[in-house]
């Protein structure tokens, strides 16, 4: 199968968040960046498993500046064959999806995989957008993907309060949720091989952004926790009823 895996770079969850003086951009000083876990642990690993079982290639794509190469190289070290980076600072989800679709249109992939969302913005938009631009089926929140011939796939996906099983023919776009695969740690051989794998840098296509970030603000500070003695649970119930008004 010819597989494209879209990977994103996100701040690690544990990182402190601060903004520039005008509050229009994340201050990247001291921010620990990682590959978006849903892209890395589930989408990429399942793509590699399919390649190992059925043959084919796994290409990574990222929309971002040169700083992102470190994250892309990690994906190559885990086992992807080559990578493409669309060289821009992505201003909106629609722009990112447009750029990926422009690349994919010319390459005729059998399967386009990505994580169900990024852990920084949790928008869950890119996969659906790519599918629409390419007029392809989109299966979201996949926890299981089976195909014996690389042509017809059976997929289990998370839905509200349950599970749905669908069947779809390649080519299609799919977003990956926890359970689809097990995380792989790159080994030394993979890291060495990644250095010589192709990472093609591409100039973005023209696109007019429709939505832009105006500013970031910090949420109001949480008031201090109110401690209640363990023998006085009637007091806790009273506070939940009268003060918090949640019961």
């Amino acid at each position, binding site marked *: 199968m010819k597989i494209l895996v879209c990977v994103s770079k996100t701040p690690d969850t544990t990182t402190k968040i601060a903004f520039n003086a005008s509050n229009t951009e994340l201050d990247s000083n001291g921010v620990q960046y990682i590959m978006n876990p849903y892209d890395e642990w589930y989408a990429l690993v399942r793509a590699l498993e399919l390649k190992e079982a059925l043959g084919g290639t796994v290409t990574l794509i990222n929309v971002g500046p040169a700083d992102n190469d470190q994250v892309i190289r990690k994906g190559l070290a885990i086992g992807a064959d080559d990578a493409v980076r669309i060289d821009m600072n992505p201003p909106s989800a629609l722009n990112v999806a*447009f750029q990926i679709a422009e690349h994919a249109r010319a390459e005729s992939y059998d399967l386009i995989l990505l994580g169900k969302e990024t852990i920084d913005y949790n928008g869950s938009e890119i996969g659906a957008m790519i599918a629409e631009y390419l007029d392809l089926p989109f299966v979201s929140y996949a926890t299981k993907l089976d195909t014996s011939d690389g042509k017809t796939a059976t997929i289990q996906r998370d*839905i509200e309060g*349950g599970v749905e099983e669908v069947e779809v023919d390649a080519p299609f776009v799919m977003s990956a949720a926890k359970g689809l695969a097990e995380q792989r740690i790159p080994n030394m051989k993979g890291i060495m091989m990644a250095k010589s794998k192709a990472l093609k840098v591409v100039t973005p296509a023209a696109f007019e952004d*429709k939505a832009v970030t105006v500013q970031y603000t910090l*949420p109001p500070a949480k008031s201090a926790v109110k401690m209640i003695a363990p023998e006085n*649970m009637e007091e806790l119930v009273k506070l939940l009823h009268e003060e918090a008004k949640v019961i």
Partner: protein
Amino acid sequence: MVLVFAESQKGNFKKTAFEAVTYGYKTAQVLGTECVALALGTAHNAADLGLYGANKVLHVADATLDQFDSQIYAKVIAEASQQVGAKVIVLSHTSTGKSVHGRLAARLGAGSVAGVNSIPTADGGFKVKKGVFSGKAIAEYEIKSEVKVLSVMGNSLQPAVVGSAAPVEALAIAVPASRVKVKSVSRIEGIVPLPEAELVVSAGRGMKGPENWGIVEDLANVLGATTACSRPVADVHWRPHHEHVGQTGIAIRPNLYIAIGISGAIQHLAGVNNSKTIVVINKDPEAPFFKAADYGVVGDLFEVVPKLTEAFKQFKAAE
């Protein structure tokens, strides 16, 4: 005009749909326009959407829409929006809504924001906010395109009754054949799914073993709450995976989240810190979760939880 795609399950509209209509109604007020709801497939109580502010309900009744395909849904919603000249399209930020949202934006060339938690403002541009970076910041966006697509984060506003039953009008839109074949759908019956739950009782490694979960279930039963768990507990199969809340599990926004024997790692907080009120019960006073809590109890959970259950029982009986 604001068009709200109201999601139904087996033809019944539920809280998420009422929230989306409430959001659409409030947005329409800001823009000085009307709010229209759109129902797809079987729809039993579509007129109820009027209670939350829909002036009317458009209904595409084709039964093939009872099976979900993001491509078909996007096409039908886009066509409906063009027929009625909608400028803002509102969806729920649910697995269905999220799967359609991006498609609609791409199809209509519309600016979009997914997971909004505040009503848009229209003075000096159409602006709207959402929580980002695991709740550590709020981002404000401006949408510049003529048509805008928004998905509403669950439990970010309360559905409010502002009107009466709305007229339901049939809308004729050709529904193409789907390329995604739904083989089966299985739902866990009898419980409120975690993303929709208003009350959640959750427990972690402090429980020491799966055989001790009875006290957690007792507390949840008294409250009518949904049970949840932390990642380590799901990973060792003490509890089923569908109960796992946190960054890699389910993100929840209940009114009340009671965390029992969970230390509160940042990955766990990322999935629960939008809860309105957080109660933490832990024997370790240094547990990081207390910093994110509204109410804290330091004590042995095997003593505290049954006492809390008893106190809730007395409260319920007195009510």
